[in-house]
């Protein structure tokens, strides 16, 4: 390794150097400078790609105490902890006292003098972080490929790790990248369906580790997730982080085996007389101090809040870059939109209107909240989905290819009655047990209602349906804290595929009108081509959808006036025809329509177009109502 990479391989050394230097000059503020140092280093061109990522490199390839990055999601926040910021050690041989720095470390050196005057107690916060839930395989792959950090096992192999863990990971050793891809390959919805039988299979650790870690619940929000989870120690500004934030954390990896020793049996007897130790339940210890080989500790040096997790877009760190990028894509947007529309029309069995609405849905985003009202959400209920040839599942696979993170939830009776959607606080283990609705922002949640069959929802089922209803109407999830509930706002795009009108509320319902005859449907579906992975067209779509979501938007006074006039006129003709709710929806449609064209302000044309497609949609619903007399 070149010496310039010392800050990657030995960040602790850098920190300690700064600490030592500060001893002669006490007011130097070395802590701020250390953080600054790493920030500066990371700002350098492509520097961040040199840092190995926990997401795509198996943990045992990483060198302990080196700098790593982790793209993650804050699943839980533990209590703040006090640690020895500065402490003094005594050499038993010479009685010489040395001051040491305890920051960014879990374990102290030998011979701590507890009664030293120079001990400085400091505070840090621990977050329990998991990989972003529902992150689609193409995102993972793309991030992994863009990384330039190639860690070669032979050089970074440090035998301080516990033997147990790397033996088990052996199967991954040979071809780590490929192995992971295979594991995380397209999650077929059928797989989920199967999982529904088992209530909490979702929390199983990655398969390669299950043998040793079956007792350890890594608490992933979604079933079948893989990847490392991490205890991130935050040293400053922890109030700025919120639960369910997406972060890219740069920090020092700590996997000291001493941390795992806690679980060892032989300690039990020694702990008996130590009241402070015996007070914690076994569950709590397991959760808060899991073996470091499974849940490494990451001491945060710098963290970036992620606006999106689309690897094709420049990360928000360099703002001038991203604005240039935006400008370049903006001009292309209308043409990409046409292509996407054509593709989705093809996918939606030739229904162009539904395809249009699907685009609007995919770029929708809660951009602001007015007291309790979230603005900008656009939950789409696509009714009339054919039930043959698992069409809804195919549709999901296509959406999965387009958006960075998504989740398929088959609303089968069994699933609804058994799955845990709402996170719940477990006071015994003192942690937040995750649920499928604990998702990062802009995750696409795909509810497949065609799977619903006749039967009865039990208490859990009713609660789950209520939670989904709340999520759709208010974009919030009430986490269950046993003694009270706590409301967490969220920003999740919900798409409901159903046969008739959904039992859940939605902002907008569109009935699919297939242009394909029922008899040819099977045939059509089998020939329906999926875009090949990583084709340039697919990438264009992906960029398009993410960019459209990030754009700013405004309405000029002029257009406001004309919108008002329109509303008044429409009401004059027939007051029943349009209610305040309809206007709300039309404003959202107009907003999304403009953004989908790459326009950042509402134009008269877009407004008229929004009115037009809304009218089309409504007339289709009327039609459908007449056909099906029993439709509510």
């Amino acid at each position, binding site marked *: 390794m070149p010496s310039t990479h010392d800050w990657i391989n030995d960040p602790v050394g850098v920190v300690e150097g700064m600490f030592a230097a500060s001893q002669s000059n006490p007011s130097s503020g070395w802590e701020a400078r250390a953080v600054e140092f790493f920030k500066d280093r990371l700002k350098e061109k492509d520097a961040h790609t040199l840092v190995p990522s926990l997401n795509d490199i198996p943990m045992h390839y990483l060198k302990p105490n080196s700098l790593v990055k982790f793209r993650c999601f804050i699943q839980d926040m533990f*209590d*703040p*902890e*006090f*640690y*020895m910021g500065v402490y003094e050690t005594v050499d038993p041989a010479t009685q010489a006292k040395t001051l040491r720095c305890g920051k960014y*470390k*879990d*374990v*102290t*050196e*030998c*011979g*701590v003098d*507890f*009664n*030293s*005057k120079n*001990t400085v*107690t400091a*505070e840090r916060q621990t977050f329990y972080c998991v990989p972003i839930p529902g992150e689609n395989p193409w995102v993972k792959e793309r991030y992994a490929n863009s990384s330039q950090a190639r860690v070669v096992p032979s050089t970074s192999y440090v035998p301080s790790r516990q033997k147990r863990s790397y033996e088990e990971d052996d199967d991954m050793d040979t071809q780590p990248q490929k192995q992971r891809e295979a594991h995380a390959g397209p999650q077929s919805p059928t797989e989920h369906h199967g999982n529904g039988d088992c209530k909490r299979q979702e929390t199983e650790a990655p398969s390669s580790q299950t043998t040793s870690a079956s007792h350890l619940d890594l608490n992933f929000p979604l079933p079948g997730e893989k990847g490392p989870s991490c205890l991130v120690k935050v040293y400053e500004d922890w109030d700025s982080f*919120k*639960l*369910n934030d997406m972060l890219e954390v740069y920090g020092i990896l700590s996997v000291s085996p*001493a*941390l795992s*020793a*806690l679980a060892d049996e032989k300690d039990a007897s*020694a702990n008996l*007389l*130590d*009241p*402070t*130790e015996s*007070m914690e339940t076994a569950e709590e210890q397991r959760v808060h101090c899991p073996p470091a080989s499974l849940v490494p500790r990451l001491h945060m040096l710098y963290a970036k809040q992620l606006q999106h997790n689309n690897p094709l877009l420049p990360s928000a760190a360099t703002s001038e870059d991203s604005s240039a990028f935006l400008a370049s894509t903006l001009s292309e947007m209308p043409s990409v939109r046409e292509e996407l529309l054509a593709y989705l029309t093809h996918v939606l069995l030739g229904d162009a209107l539904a395809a249009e609405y699907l685009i609007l849905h995919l770029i929708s985003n809660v951009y*602001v909240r007015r*007291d*309790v*009202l979230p*603005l900008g959400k656009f939950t789409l209920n696509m009714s009339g989905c054919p039930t043959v040839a698992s069409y809804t599942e195919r549709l999901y696979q296509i959406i999965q290819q387009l958006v960075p993170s998504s989740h398929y939830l088959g609303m089968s009776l069994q699933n609804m009655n058994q799955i845990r959607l709402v996170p719940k606080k477990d*006071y015994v283990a*003192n942690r937040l047990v995750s649920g499928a609705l604990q998702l990062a922002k802009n995750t696409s949640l795909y509810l497949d209602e065609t799977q619903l069959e006749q039967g009865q929802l039990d208490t859990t089922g*009713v609660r789950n349906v209520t939670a989904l209803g709340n999520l759709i109407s*208010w974009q919030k999830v009430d986490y269950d*804290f046993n*003694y*009270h509930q*706590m409301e967490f706002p969220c920003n999740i795009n919900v798409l409901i595929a159903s046969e008739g009108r959904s039992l859940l509320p939605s902002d907008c319902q569109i009935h699919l009108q297939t242009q394909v005859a029922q008899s040819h449907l099977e045939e059509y579906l089998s020939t329906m081509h999926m875009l090949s992975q990583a084709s340039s067209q697919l990438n264009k779509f992906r960029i398009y959808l993410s960019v459209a979501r990030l754009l700013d*938007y405004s*309405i000029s006074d002029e257009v*406001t006036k004309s*919108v*008002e006039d329109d*509303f*008044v006129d429409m*009401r004059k003709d027939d007051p029943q025809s349009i*209610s*305040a709710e309809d206007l*709300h929806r039309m*404003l959202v449609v107009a907003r999304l329509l403009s953004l989908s064209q790459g326009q950042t302000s509402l134009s008269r044309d877009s407004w008229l177009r929004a009115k037009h497609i809304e009218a089309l949609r409504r007339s289709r619903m009327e039609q459908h109502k007449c056909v099906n007399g029993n439709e509510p």
Partner: protein
Amino acid sequence: MSSPASTPGGRKRGRNTNPPTPSSEDPTSPPSQRRRGQDSSTGDLMPMPTSPATDILSPAAPQDTSLLSSPRPSVPPNEVDMSSPLMYGTPSSRIEGTPRSGVRGTPARQRPDLGSVRKAPQVDLHSEPPSADGAVASESNAGQRLVIWGTDVNVGTCKEKFQRFLQRFVDPTSTEDENAGLDLNEPLYMQKLEEISVVGDPVMNVNCRHVQSFDAELYRQLTCYPQEVIPTFDMAVNELFFERFPDSFLEYQIQVRPYNAVKTKSMRSLNPEDIDQLITISGMVIRTSQLIPEMQEAFFQCQVCAYSTRVEVDRGRIAEPAVCRHCNTTHSLALIHNRSVFSDKQMIKIQESPEDMPAGQTPHTTIVYAHNDLVDKVQPGDRVNITGIYRAVPMRVNPRQSNVKSVYKTHIDAIHFRKTDEKRLHGLDEEAEQKLFTEDRVQTLKELAAKPDVYERLSSALAPSIYEHEDIKKGILLQLFGGTRKDFSQTGRGNFRAEVNILLCGDPGTSKSQLLQYVYNLVPRGQYTSGKGSSAVGLTAYVMKDPETRQLVLQTGALVLSDNGICCIDEFDKMSDNTRSVLHEVMEQQTLSIAKAGIICQLNARTAVLAAANPVESQWNPKKTTIENIQLPHTLLSRFDLIFLMLDPQDEAYDRRLAHHLVSLYYQTEEQMEEEFLDMAVLKDYIAYARTYINPRLSEEASQALIEAYVDMRKIGSGRGMVSAYPRQLESLIRLAEAHAKVRFSEKVETIDVEEAKRLHREALKQSATDPRTGFVDISILTTGMSATARKRKEEVAQALKKLIQAKGKTPAMKYQQLLDDLRGQSETAITKELFDEALRALADEDYLTVTGKTVRLLA
């Protein structure tokens, strides 16, 4: 109990009721042990390699004695070190056999809440040789200059100051319930001492705020060095007590329990600087552990010569003596469990209260240790204010490894618990909800209240994203404030409802749900349920088996949880009748009676109900009455003070304003949002303040105005032979008027309040109780479910039918259809089938005829 002379049986687990017998004293105990107070360790017996601070102090104690000059000459010289905290508590070994009264006669009880000092990293003491013990004594006219090591606390001065505080502190404005029955103009704490002498509960709770207002310096010392200062307080109070009541008998010495330290209020703001300080935090108990007997002192006996020795537990560990001092056998000492001393201990976990939390974060938890009689004082679910000492202990990864995890474990040693919701089940709890307002805040609120248009301002600040519906917002505003609670239980009517119930009905999509959501988010104790998703038990209470204790426990539902708050019920019409029926009791008597699984009880449910209902035909039919439109039982409807219709007004100017409002929602800037957010906070405080502090009473003019209003309302209908108001309406008017007075922060209900109440009530009536046939306001629609005109019409038809039948002469049975056709032919107005049925039923009630299937038979 650390005292070597402790009675082995009696000392275990708390209260010792046996007087110590001389026989229990170990005859061979070395003299050095006799001097031991609670803080000293076994001294020369067990030289500890890393002995903690207080261990160092005890050998120093004799030196102190020589240096000290006692402030009170009457005290025998060997008592001098009594004033030293090192000798905190009277070592009972010294006074064995003396009668149990006076300071010396009463055993000191160990205070593990303070005692765990030994486990704290008292670094500074160890690094200094004991000779440099901070107790630098020098004579001065002020008395001792001795300070406790590491602090600036002078024991003598501190004690004197505290005694002065006890003797002199008067708080004439005290409103605390604890002081009820005490003469507020007499020294407060002296009365409490008297209480102790009578009751015999040797605990003295001291409000830190009182200490602060009396002597700020003393207060500072108390919060900064609680583990040194509180024992000093204990000594002071005991001296004082036994001076005043020399003959009183206490189980053990009085312990001072300070509470209400202003140091820290929220768990989130705890930081390393608070370690070892006295803090008060509030939170909710989420878990309590089993009782843990914690060994305080181990008892060892030599297997060879039966020589016994005691070893104090240090940092959770016992240093087992390797050699018997008596017979010099090695490894002959064995631990005798039932002669060792244990104290009670319990781990309690508390979590931040949801109100104190920033959005988007999870609540923090803190571990609290309760000792001795504080064990089992609180239960999971309780809201408590805990005063205690914040501790941090380094964690050891493995006792056999020398490197430690560089993390401290933190906990609070509880000194005092105060439940904040203690009285909730029993009575009014306005005091319990002492939301603290800063002076500035109160000032701003008062300024706001003084504005003439405060009512309009507040109502427009309510749910700004919802357009217009001014009167509805005003109604909800009054609901938020509520009326004054009146107690008529002496005259047999019980409590009068003070809460205002409101029903919103109207077309779908008129933002009813949004309004409900807003209210739910605004009030501190609000509940939101949907009629579709809630069952009767979900609203009231249900019995379930607790998974841990396997006992049946009552789980309260939404209505009980929103006691003193607002229960928002959406889709009221979709509720099952069964569910709705539980609301009858809640909405008038404000209680909930439960008889389930052997649990019979009545719970308070003083909740205001804000309900929203959709019309049956999904669209409001203006040709029908409210009852017909929403199909709710009138018994329930009459319990709503205000029933508003939220309809689309369908007029152009309104449409334009609405459109403008909606469009502006979609492009307003962040700052405008901020402004509104501030408004919500102000509104919250305003309501909380008014609810807590303002209790308006009716003035003379207001009562007159109310009487007139009521009489007027009755008159309206009497002209047409209908009643348009019932006493329930009068009660509603009173509540509304009171609420309006609260909005103005006025202690008196005046005529303007009555005027507004009348106006609002009329508005609501106009909307909901207008008879669609006549256009008149008719309260009987709400009270009987049928308008008076409709009833009159029914009677007319019945009479006509009777005439028709009589005209037919002697035909005992007639065809139903035939009769209907005849009646239709005869009558000039249209007769519906329903009307005809009702007429038949009326006649059947008169026993004139019976209807069987399709035939009508005459009776008699």
